């Protein structure tokens, strides 16, 4: 499968080119446009539809009854353009047998051969400005696409690095992590704006996003029509 990421870092879309028999799984609603040589299925429960196992689908979509779309090309050189819900970036991560922990809303699409486990609880009840976050453990081998709110920047951790929890996109599970307060004094942490942060240590790659959705939502929300 070939890919090209267009219009980074805010209006990003991934243009994928698939050969006959190749397939990709993505969230319902991610399809923007496609050529006509595709078979589209909806996957439910624990079957990825192409070999990948998906666990915890219900949690993945916050209890809503949403499904995954599975696209299989039936002819050569079929193109599919996918994009995430919010403005933001997309990157491709080639899985090679390791494990990547991905923030729940940052998983965009994965090819066959990648297992998705949305029941992973390693970060405990990490809060994201009052909302609980969930994480997706990806393992196996193949193409993985991640999205973000903001621009994605990688950090190769070699000592210790601190990230505001709302800014984590994904991290390799070779890293150790600890949730804590940003600064030593309680006043500083609580009132100074920086709430909970995640301190990563060890060796591994971490992907961060430059912005976080709740901060934006809180600014815009009050200007909108009431619910």
């Amino acid at each position: 499968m070939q890919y090209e990421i267009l219009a980074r870092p805010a209006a990003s879309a991934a243009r994928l080119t698939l050969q006959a028999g190749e397939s990709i799984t993505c969230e319902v609603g991610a399809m923007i446009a496609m050529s006509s040589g595709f078979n589209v299925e909806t996957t439910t429960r624990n079957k990825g539809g192409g070999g990948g196992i998906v666990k915890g689908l219900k949690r993945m979509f916050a209890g809503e009854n949403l499904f995954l779309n599975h696209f299989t090309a039936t002819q050569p050189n079929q193109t599919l353009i996918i994009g995430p819900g919010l403005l933001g970036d997309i990157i491709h991560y080639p899985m090679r047998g390791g494990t990547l922990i991905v923030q729940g809303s940052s998983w965009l699409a994965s090819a066959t051969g990648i297992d998705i486990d949305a029941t992973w609880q390693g970060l405990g009840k990490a809060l994201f400005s009052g909302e609980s976050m969930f994480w997706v453990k990806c393992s196996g081998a193949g193409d993985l696409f991640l999205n973000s709110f903001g621009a994605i920047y990688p950090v190769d951790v070699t000592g210790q690095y601190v990230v505001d929890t709302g800014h984590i996109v994904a991290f390799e599970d070779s890293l150790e992590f600890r949730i804590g307060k940003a600064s030593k004094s309680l006043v500083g942490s609580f009132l100074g704006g920086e709430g909970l942060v995640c301190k990563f240590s060890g060796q591994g790659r971490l992907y961060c996003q430059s912005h976080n959705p709740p901060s934006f939502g809180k600014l815009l929300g009050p200007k909108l029509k009431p619910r």
Partner: protein
Amino acid sequence: MIEFTCPSCQKHYRVNDELAGKTAKCKQCGGTFQVPMPVVPAEVDEYAVSSAPVAASVQASAAPIAAAVVDGRGTSAILSGNTGNFEYEISQRPDFALVTVKMQQGQKVFAEPSAMASMTPSVTLKAGFKGGLGRTIGRALGGESLIINTFTADQGPGEVTFAAGAPGDAAYYRLQGNTLYVQRGAFMLHSEGVDLTGKWQGAKGFFSGEGLVLLKASGTGDIFFNSYGAILQVDVTDQYIVDTGYIVAFEDTLQYRVTILPGLRAGGKLKSFFFGGEGLVCQFSGQGKVWVQTRHVHSFLSWVHPFRPASKN
């Protein structure tokens, strides 16, 4: 010729090659800069520049693919030119595009309400109904607001900048006696000589249930439209399928058919707080251009919903 922009104010310049390397002062902001060397455009994807690792399997697909050519190149370049009526510039692309129109005395443009970001005082704004009652009713039925604003450079040459409400791109299209269909929320402004209506045969059936309305623009003149997200221009040569919520505009040389793609949007509650639809796609065939945007307004509405104030009862 060397094309570049002032690093301080992004004013677009086009100068002779012999000025390469010379220091100059910007006519607009007064900042000094050095004229860059003439550059031969490379076949590099400018939008792929980033700090993310590039996997060994990256292949930029340069060859046209089966049914359509999708052009996403140059998504951040400043677009400028002369429409034959006036000079224009589209800057701050592809996420916060601004359309600047430079009119000569007596010229006018017709714009969507609230689209004006700034203007020189030589331009006069008049809200009103363009083209008489029939046109107004047409727009009312099409869901378009009843008002169209006329900007006239009546006290001398004038400049107006227009900005959409949504974050995204903008594009210019020249009508040459043909017709362009534009999604209602995408219309920004048009010049004299263009007829815009929401009432046309087939308008009601197109997006029924989706809450999306298509306007029909025809005549000879200039039209500018915006998008939510970036604009990808697709040259359809055979067949192409686009989710209806991502359609910005398309030429009338294309045949189209709106259907529900089985399995595309199965299950789930219909979000009932906005005008929503269910997995409608448009199958285009024939030859012509369709402009596709890379974000869907419904996803934005779903996301922002919990942040809305609770209604006071």
